[in-house]
């Protein structure tokens, strides 16, 4: 079987002044290309740490993480940007560049990859249409609503056609209407072939998806179900 992502006995411990915090303990699982995987768990169960490890934002204390058969924590720091270009990220707090317009925020990822001006113009226009933000392309993030900001963040995550999109609580700050909107968009992207890893604690979202669910509790995988439901 071909795996795109493989976690092999991954542990992560943060050293605090009082006592060590075990964010993840011996976590192992695999993700195949084109899968839609939801990572669920209470706050502090290790969801965000798991995504940070996958993005090489943190190093594991032990174990290994493979992306397309490459141990990502063996990649030298000056080459990490190449790995990150294969991954699109959607953050709960959007992390849009405040001094750039919606268009510029989305175009930025293509610019760093060296796409031509014409490619950028064409692709950004298409993605803006996909996330229904064409008429907001010249607005700055502070002029957008929460839902619009999250759609802009998703557009930025998918513009360069990454192999996988990591979405960390993408609906955390949204009302139910906008939540449905964002989840529909992620499902659509998955149907177009992009692997999605969604970290959330939104019960309604998980139950409506009927996709694979990995449940974390105190840093450990307690369930991994093909068509899982929210059960914490």
């Amino acid at each position, binding site marked *: 079987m071909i795996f795109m992502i493989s976690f092999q006995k991954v542990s992560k411990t943060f050293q605090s002044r009082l006592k060590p915090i075990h964010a993840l303990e011996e976590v192992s699982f695999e993700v195949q290309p084109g899968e839609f995987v939801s990572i669920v768990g209470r706050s502090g169960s290790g969801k965000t740490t798991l995504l940070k490890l996958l993005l090489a934002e943190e190093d594991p204390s032990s174990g290994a993480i493979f992306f397309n058969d490459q141990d990502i924590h063996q990649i030298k720091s000056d080459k990490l940007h190449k790995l990150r270009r294969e991954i699109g990220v959607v953050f709960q707090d959007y*992390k849009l*560049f405040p*001094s750039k317009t919606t268009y510029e925020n989305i175009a*930025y990822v293509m610019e760093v*990859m060296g796409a031509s001006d014409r490619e950028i113009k064409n692709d950004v226009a298409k993605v803006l249409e996909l996330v229904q933000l064409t008429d907001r392309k010249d607005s700055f993030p502070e002029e957008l609503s929460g839902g619009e900001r999250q759609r802009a963040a998703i557009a930025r995550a998918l513009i360069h056609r990454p192999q996988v999109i990591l979405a960390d609580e993408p609906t955390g700050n949204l009302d139910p209407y906008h939540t449905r909107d964002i989840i529909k968009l992620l499902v659509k992207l998955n149907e177009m072939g992009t692997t999605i890893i969604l970290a959330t604690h939104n019960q309604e979202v998980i139950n409506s998806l009927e996709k694979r669910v990995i449940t974390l509790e105190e840093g450990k995988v307690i369930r991994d179900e093909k068509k899982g439901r929210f059960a914490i």
Partner: protein
Amino acid sequence: MMSAALKRIIKSGWRDFKRNNGLSVATIFIMVMTISLVTSLFLSQKTFNFLIVSLEDKVDMAVYFTEEPTNEEILTIQAELFHLPEVKKLEYISKEEALAKFTERHAGEEVIMESLAEVGGNPLLSSINIKAWEASQYAAISAFLDTASFNDLIAKVDYSQKKPVIERLFSLTSNINTTGIVLSIILALVAVLIAFNTVRIAIYNSKEEIETMRLVGASDWFIRGPFMVQGIISGLWAVLITFLIFSAAVYFLSPKVAIIVPGLNLSSFFFSNFLVILLLQLAAGVGLGVIASWLAVRKHLII
């Protein structure tokens, strides 16, 4: 490919500079202060040097001869003195010339002129005025004269009378130089640190943006580049503003400075050293902007 990336970096730096105008103006203001201080230190150093040189120029020593030496003797004495590396300039003054100068200097002073007439003839001695390169060198010349082959022709050397003045001048100029250098280094360092911190704080504001840029796959240079471009632009603006301020200030203050320090033409000095001053300002402004941005961004890239 490379030039397209460079074009994007420059474009992005320029756009961010315009959009963060409040921060850009604050950075430029601090840089103007820094460059002004560096330029002022440069100009004060030059003014002090001018003062020292003009003070030193006023000091000389005179060798008086017992009788009027022959032309041949004068040439020999001058040749021997010129062999000394400490000697900058020599001037022979004959008895007649000495009398003419004395008469001219004291023309309005009746008592002196009457005394001179009473003495009768020309009581003044012929002499050689010696100018050294530096005030500290007169002692060596005096020591040479004590053992010189023409020592028997010498009636007196006025070094011993002038010695305290010369030594005081020597100590003063050397103190001014040392204090000037130490003060310049301290002030320049303070100015550079203030400017560096301003740029660092400006970039600290973008800490989260830098982190996001890394996470969406931007290379270190693509992140660092626009900040460095902003540093260059701020530096260039600061240089332009400082240069205009100094040009105007020097133009209007030059006549006033000339009253306090006769012979010093600040305006002519400033404009004849136009390129040096501009290069100094560019090095201070642009160099500071680039290095400060590079170091400040580097801190946020290490993860």
